């Protein structure tokens, strides 16, 4: 109970509320290829603002980080941050009933925290224990909760009602957040998020530039990529859902239309 400071109940209520909202929108079993986007005008506005912030601040910082910090150092920063995420991974492995994955996550933490010197290195991966990302958004997806609808968060970028609610929940799986909250060391969580963001961005500089250059509706492309990627993550990369590709898939009149030409 010591862990529950005064601020927490309010935040928890918000998280719980968001969860209910997600559950209400959920359509278990179905997996539409497109994500609903009722907030599109607002989302596009935030997306444009994010792009401006990215161009002036985040991308230059990420480029600087990538070009001036040596490779091994950046790898260690990433390994260290990832090792710290173990509680979130473990909780979600268990919640999804995936005991094998929980075992891998546990062993990875043990190996990397010891032989890997506090998580700075990832010897576990070389032993065949590959990391698999999990979060509460994926856990909800695993149990058939749909994404609800698309949300572009300021600075944080693409998300969905389900995944944003999931982030709230994941916050409570991480003991470091409790520690930071209880000891008034908010800078720990903030700087961690900043470094993680810069690191992630530094790995997608060319890819994102190229997607922007080659698309005719960058916003719609990112929305589609986000949704497909999340669906794939929920399935843990197995058996991608394939659309039925025949000339009747869009509607019944399609075949006749195709034959007429």
């Amino acid at each position: 109970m010591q862990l529950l400071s005064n601020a927490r109940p309010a935040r928890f209520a918000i998280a719980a509320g968001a969860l209910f909202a997600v559950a209400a929108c959920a359509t278990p079993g179905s997996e539409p290829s497109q994500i609903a986007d009722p907030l599109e005008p607002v989302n596009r506005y935030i997306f444009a603002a994010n792009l401006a912030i990215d161009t002036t601040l985040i991308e230059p910082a990420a480029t600087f980080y990538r070009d001036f910090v040596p490779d091994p150092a950046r790898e260690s920063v990433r390994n260290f941050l990832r090792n710290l995420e173990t509680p979130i991974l473990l909780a979600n492995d268990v919640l999804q009933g995936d005991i094998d994955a929980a075992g891998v996550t546990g062993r990875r933490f043990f190996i990397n925290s010891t032989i890997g010197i506090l998580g700075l290195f990832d010897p576990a991966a070389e032993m065949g224990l590959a990391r698999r990302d999990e979060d509460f958004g994926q856990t909800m997806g695993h149990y058939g909760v749909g994404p609800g609808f698309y949300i572009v968060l300021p600075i944080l970028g693409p998300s969905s009602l389900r995944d944003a609610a999931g982030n709230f929940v994941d916050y409570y799986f991480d003991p470091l957040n409790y520690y930071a909250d209880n000891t008034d060391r908010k800078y720990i969580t903030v700087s961690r998020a900043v470094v993680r963001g810069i690191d992630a961005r530094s790995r997608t500089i060319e890819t994102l530039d190229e997607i922007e250059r080659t698309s005719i509706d960058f916003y719609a492309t990112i929305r589609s990529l986000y949704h497909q990627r999340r669906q794939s993550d929920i399935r843990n990369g197995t058996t991608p859902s394939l659309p039925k590709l025949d000339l009747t898939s869009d509607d019944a009149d399609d075949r006749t239309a195709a034959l007429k030409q």
Partner: protein
Amino acid sequence: MMADRMIQLRRFVLVLVAATTFSLSAAAQQARADTTEEFIAQLGDRALQVLVQGAQSEEQRAEAFRALLSDGFDLPLIGRYALGRFWRKATPAQRGEYVKLFEDFIVTTYAARLGEYSGETLQVVSSRAVDSDTIVVSEIVREGLQPIRVDWRVRNGDHGFKIVDVVVEGVSMLLTQRDEFASVIQRAGGDVEGLLDRLREKNDAQN
């Protein structure tokens, strides 16, 4: 007695025929899968050759790449799927122009993507049948990094094997294109002409 033996014999023949038929069709399926895998592997080799060939101009390379794309991919069909439900709304003239614009768009898009190539190799892992298509699972192997999983959806049609979709780490290029095009058309008030305009602009800017 005689009748009994006849029945036994008939049963034996039936089992034999069934067994042969089954193993034959299994073999045929295996053969189809093998040749589809080979098709993807060969295409990968060809792409590699285009890339490593020195002493060629930017134009020559683009031309070789365009040939490779039209050989390996069913671009008209992909374009048709990418337009989704709006195909039906388009006039025959619009459809004709769209198919041309789409091919140019894809070639320039993928030519840009090719610039990022830095010595990875494509390894075919396995294949399986989905509907009437074959999915060839492959990995792009990168030095010191986790391999990227790429699934090729291949259709064996009138013109032999053709790729109809590429799924990279669970993300379908075809679905992405379809979502993007649908968004452009919806923002143009449901008018296919809005998409054609954007494609024309894009192709002109890149050529």
